[in-house]
């Protein structure tokens, strides 16, 4: 049998990986419950179907569709978590977390600290976002910096099936609140089937591709754009090391610093607005730690300081893509 007809490795999508992680976690631990708008099967298991099948399998007591009430959704998750449950709350789109910011920032993130460690809030907040569908100014912001800036919150943003599964399993097991960011256009991206029960530790980055000239740090969709830039960079003789942060906060300083110490150049890429973004924190840290040994100032590539525009050409120019990543990396290596 030739290689071409060899069985292809089985694949699943990121959406299926998240679904599998939720199902496996619910199977393993009856304290895991799911709530959010339209998440149960009579409502089609979520607007894009991430929770499809869960209410049929585990019952509508554990998988509850809610009214449009984001404050109450997060509040209910917090409350249930205080008395022993492990809620996974869905906020349909990241922009709708703004309606529940009090619950997230003033309560979920802080209760452990303010109670002197007597209570804790082991919830996961799943939310999706991302440009690319012409949904305009209120439906596709990347707001991870807001949450990363809030002491007590953890923030993860997987870019592939294995991490989507493993980070979800780890986030559910984690004793503190975790915001889990899903990228809408990436849901249907296929990848290897994750090992059932596997976890990806929070706070650990992954070197997706080795390289020697520049370290590119990213997460979520733009990580895959960086991988898409490899060929263009290679053609210009630029060897990039690409690091998937996976957990935005607390971030893996050690892996990042070690890589930049080796390459001497650093480019941080995210879809969020550059100004006051996650890249600023990483850039400041890298610049301080490696001051003097950097070959070029640390560079950031994100969205311009503007809301997401509707018009297609403007939307396409908004978030970093493979082409712009390659250009930025090549210019840093000149």
């Amino acid at each position, binding site marked *: 049998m030739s290689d071409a007809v060899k069985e292809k490795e089985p694949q699943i999508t990121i959406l299926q990986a998240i679904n599998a992680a939720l199902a496996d976690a619910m199977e393993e631990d009856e304290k895991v419950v799911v709530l959010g708008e339209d998440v149960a099967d009579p*409502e089609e298991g979520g607007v894009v179907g991430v929770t499809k099948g869960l209410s049929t399998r585990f019952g509508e007591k554990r998988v509850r569709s809610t009214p449009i009430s984001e404050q109450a959704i997060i509040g209910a998750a917090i409350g249930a978590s205080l008395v022993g449950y492990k809620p996974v709350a869905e906020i349909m789109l990241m922009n709708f977390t703004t*309606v529940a910011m009090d619950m997230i920032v003033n309560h979920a993130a802080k209760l452990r600290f303010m109670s002197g460690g007597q209570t804790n809030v082991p919830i996961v907040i799943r939310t999706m976002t991302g440009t690319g569908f*012409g949904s305009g100014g*209120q439906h596709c912001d990347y707001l991870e910096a807001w949450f990363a800036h809030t002491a007590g919150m953890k923030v993860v943003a997987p870019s592939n099936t294995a991490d989507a599964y493993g980070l979800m399993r780890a986030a559910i097991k984690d004793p503190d609140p975790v915001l889990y960011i899903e990228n809408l256009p990436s849901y249907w991206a296929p990848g290897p089937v994750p090992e059932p029960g596997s976890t990806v530790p929070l706070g650990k980055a992954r070197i997706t591709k080795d390289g020697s000239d520049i370290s590119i740090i990213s997460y979520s969709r733009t990580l895959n754009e960086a991988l898409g830039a490899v060929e263009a960079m290679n053609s210009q003789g630029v060897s990039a090391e690409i690091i998937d942060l996976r957990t935005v906060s607390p971030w893996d300083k050690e892996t990042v610093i070690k890589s930049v110490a080796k390459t001497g150049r650093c480019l941080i890429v995210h879809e969020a607005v550059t100004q006051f973004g996650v890249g600023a924190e990483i850039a400041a840290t890298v610049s301080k730690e490696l001051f003097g040994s950097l070959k070029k100032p640390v560079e950031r590539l994100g969205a311009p*300081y503007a809301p997401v*525009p509707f018009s297609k050409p403007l939307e396409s120019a908004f978030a970093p893509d493979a082409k712009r990543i390659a250009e930025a990396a090549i210019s840093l290596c000149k």
Partner: protein
Amino acid sequence: MTTNYTPDAKTQLDMYRRAALLKANDEKSRKVIKSGRLIMPYYSYRGQEIIPSALCSNLNDDDYLVTIYRGIHDMLAKGMPLKDLWAEIAGRVDGTCKGKGGPMHLTYPKKGIMVTTGIVGSSMPVATGIAWGAQMDGGGRVSVATFGDGASNIGAFHESLNLASIWKLPVIFLCQNNLYAEHTTYEKGTAVDRIADRAAAYRMPGVRVNGNDPIEMYAAAREAVERARAGEGPTLIEAMTFRFHGHVFGDADAYMDKEQKKAAMENDPVPQLRKRLINDGLATEEQLSHIEKEIEDDIEAAVAFALNSPFPEVSELTTDVYGEGARA
């Protein structure tokens, strides 16, 4: 004083003109999207046309409207020009927002269309604030927030009604109850049988009407507008209606009750109004056909205009973030 709120023949014809425009525009929109000529998230309002048509027959150009993603019917009824609308949803520079807002954020202050929000529940606080401004101005202008049944379960609804009531603001909370909030049925998501009943908790009149009945809807809107103009405060109107299509274009609506949907579509309110106008001798077939032909031509012209309008320059990406002289 009791007033007769039955619309006269001229007003009924005016309502029909608006409703026919909305219906035709929705049909065209879905056709254009289906053909791939435009790509956008589209929230069909087909079936809900009578509500804003009757409302806007009671409003002046300088009255205010705050609407939602499912709100193109509201805007057209309020007087948004077709060309500006179509150019905006096509993302072109001639759109009402230079193509930057898109179908969920159309804005046209010249006709009082102040905000279109994509956030469920957020039309109400803003319309309340506009009403506060109108109250301070003292010109008798009215502010209307439209929203869906699902939106009455969010905190902003309750906060807005309470504030508007204690400040006696000239605002109308117009709930278009189409029995679904995305995929969730009204009963599953809402604790009360009638959203109108919630008004009692905020000491304002709350009425439930058949929003598809032009006479009933007109009378309810008229009463609320007069109350507001007279400084007597806010009103909650729950207008019962039905959404003929899924939540968003492309939604297969498997969660919708087929019988219920079929029955609603058989009672299509726009052709019903048409039939009644003719039967009651308020209009002739020729008259209405003429109106419909005009509407069709206007829509065709608007679509052609939109598709020939240029896209905005990429430099538009960073303009309008701040006002002049204060750019980041």
